[in-house]
């Protein structure tokens, strides 16, 4: 977690410092485990909702941290730009992210 945060602070070049067997992996925001960070790749949602989310900060290259799940397991709370927002699984499924995996 700490390593990932540092990594994205300094850009991908800093990956030299880490285990190189890791790689950027494309995933869906809904698939990320708690505590991990993803970088937004693209959104595929109906116009109005997409616009709303983008204005809330879900734009390509934005960093999203998975904070916690609601007691029922859904929705999930994400942290973006220093504030927290909850999304349901079906919305988070429409957001493609890349995730850095250290093996």
């Amino acid at each position, binding site marked *: 977690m700490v390593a990932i945060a540092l990594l994205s602070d300094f850009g991908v070049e800093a990956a030299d410092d880490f285990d190189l067997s890791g790689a950027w992996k494309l995933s869906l925001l809904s698939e990320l485990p708690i505590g991990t960070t993803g970088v937004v790749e693209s959104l595929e949602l109906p116009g109005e909702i997409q616009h709303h989310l983008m204005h*809330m900060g879900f*734009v390509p290259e934005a960093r999203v941290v998975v904070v916690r799940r609601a007691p029922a*397991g859904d929705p999930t709370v994400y942290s973006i*730009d220093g*504030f927290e927002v*909850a*999304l349901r699984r079906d919305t988070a499924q429409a957001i493609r992210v890349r995730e850095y995996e250290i093996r």
Partner: protein
Amino acid sequence: MSDCCSTATIKVPIEPRVAGRIRTVALVGPPNSGKSTLFNRLTGLRQKVANYPGLTVEQRVGRLNGIGRGDLTLIDLPGVYGLDSYSEDARVAVEVLHGEMPGTPAPDAILLVLDSLQLRRQLMLAAPVLGLGLPTLVLLNMSDLMEARGGVVDTLALAQELGVPVAKISATRGAGLDSITHFLNRKAEPVRNGSSGNAIEAPTPGRIELPVMGNPRSYRQWATGISTRTKYKAPISSEWTKRIDGVLLHRIWGPLIFLAVVFAVFQVVFSIGQPLSDGFGDVLNEGGAKIGALLGHNWVESLLIDGVWRGVASVLVFVPQILLLFLFIGVLEDSGYLARAALIADRVMRSIGLNGKAFIPLLSAYACAVPAIMATRTIENKRDRFATILVAPFMTCSARLPIYMLMIAAFIPNKPILGDLFGLRAAVMLSLYVLGFVAALATAWLLKSSILKASSAPFILELPQYRLPTIRSLSLRLMDRGQVFLKQAGTVILAVTIVLWFLSHIPFHADLAQSVIGRLGQFIEPAIKPLGFNWKIGIGLLTSVMAREVIVGTLGTLYGADPATQSLGLQAALRHDLTLGGAMALVVFFAFALQCTSTIAIVRRETNSWRWPALQFVYMSVLAYLAALGTNQAILHFVR
């Protein structure tokens, strides 16, 4: 309960724009930026609230009295993230800013409020706003909190980047507001004189670079670039919020605490509120008796004491309980817990086709459906929002408490069920609350699987940081609600009781049953007889179409006018006149019926059509009649 929101039209004199002169200022900002708090500060709470013509968006306008500029008009625009017309709110904002909104003066200057705790994201709104080219002052709100949590921003650099003055303020504390005065005074003078108070002036206005309009991605890059160049460091997000959420959103503790909170609110409202209300009632009755003694025994005394005082006092006794309920809901909302409650409730709400955001209005509908229906504005999906509006009046609002308490105290013995904590009376009261809730859920499900069917709407919920509710904002809430209730008691209920007294005494010296009101009541009696109601209850049902609590005043006046029950208290008089079946049928009728002109008016306003309130009224009335009929018949046949 009642008329919380005057729907009077706003008359703002529209004067032509004069170059260099400021008459109208627009307040722009994203949701949750503290815009409303600032608006209240700047206008000193003398504001007019109405709707934009033909729209469901609220328009708030006031004079800048709070900073001694009563000659200027301040328009509060709806909270928006951008100026692309992707929502009704944003379309309204754009039209007002362009001076294209009929009946609203075109703004000559803009106050742009941004939450400095989330400046990087909030700056995205600055791009389209600055693009309008109006004189603008950027206000970094909650800058005291930002600095306290280790956040930094170079306001001089920011002013240079944006090409407009920037000021740090705190709307809750009222700090830094003199920068607004300076900004407005300066802009009013044709020649610049260099002094700008706290606001940091941009040296070369008008020469800034703005991103490609209408593209969130380029806004974001622009905003990120600016926050980097102005050395913006976001404050460390409050550790407290995270720690509290760890408990309140815990897999097991979260739902348990949630249920405990809801239960505790009701427990306190009844166990503390009841003695308060009783004490207040005693004071009112004694006062009435003393004034009655001064007047002597004549028709004036009868009108004032038996008619007016009895009628109005029987409603006023519920003021302490109603305020207590509003206090709790205010604390839950201001502290930030309600957003968490919505998150916990989302799963359940989803199964009936609504989303967790509908939970907040439904919870506040326990106090009053009118503010609850206004609170549905946070639900983006129109069909979800309409379904929530249509079911909100089923939630047991505080206006139902007077008749519930009266009938329960009169007809249900105070037998303990679970020791002293939970008795038969409390059980009946609780089942009435559950009844309303179940009716709301069932109706929502019905609506969402028929006329309001829609593909599942997204759930996007911002979780604010926890904060302590301020005494100031809580007391403002209570004063506001108290005033509304007292106004209702002093106008509608007063008028109803006076009219009733006269109708029940005309022709003079006739029996109550022979009076005008008696004849009217007997005329409608056949329709309500199967429900176990007598003609006096029938009159109560007619008068309470205005507001539910009116029935208690009506019954007080009617039984006070009847020589047979005059000497009895209202409870004893009712026992004398009604069966248990009729009494329970009456409370069930009230659980379902839409007897509230304020709710009907607000639904009309929010849905912008008479169709929805008409549907709602008919549906709820039919349901109430059938349920009351069932209750009375069941008790007649099965309870001895």
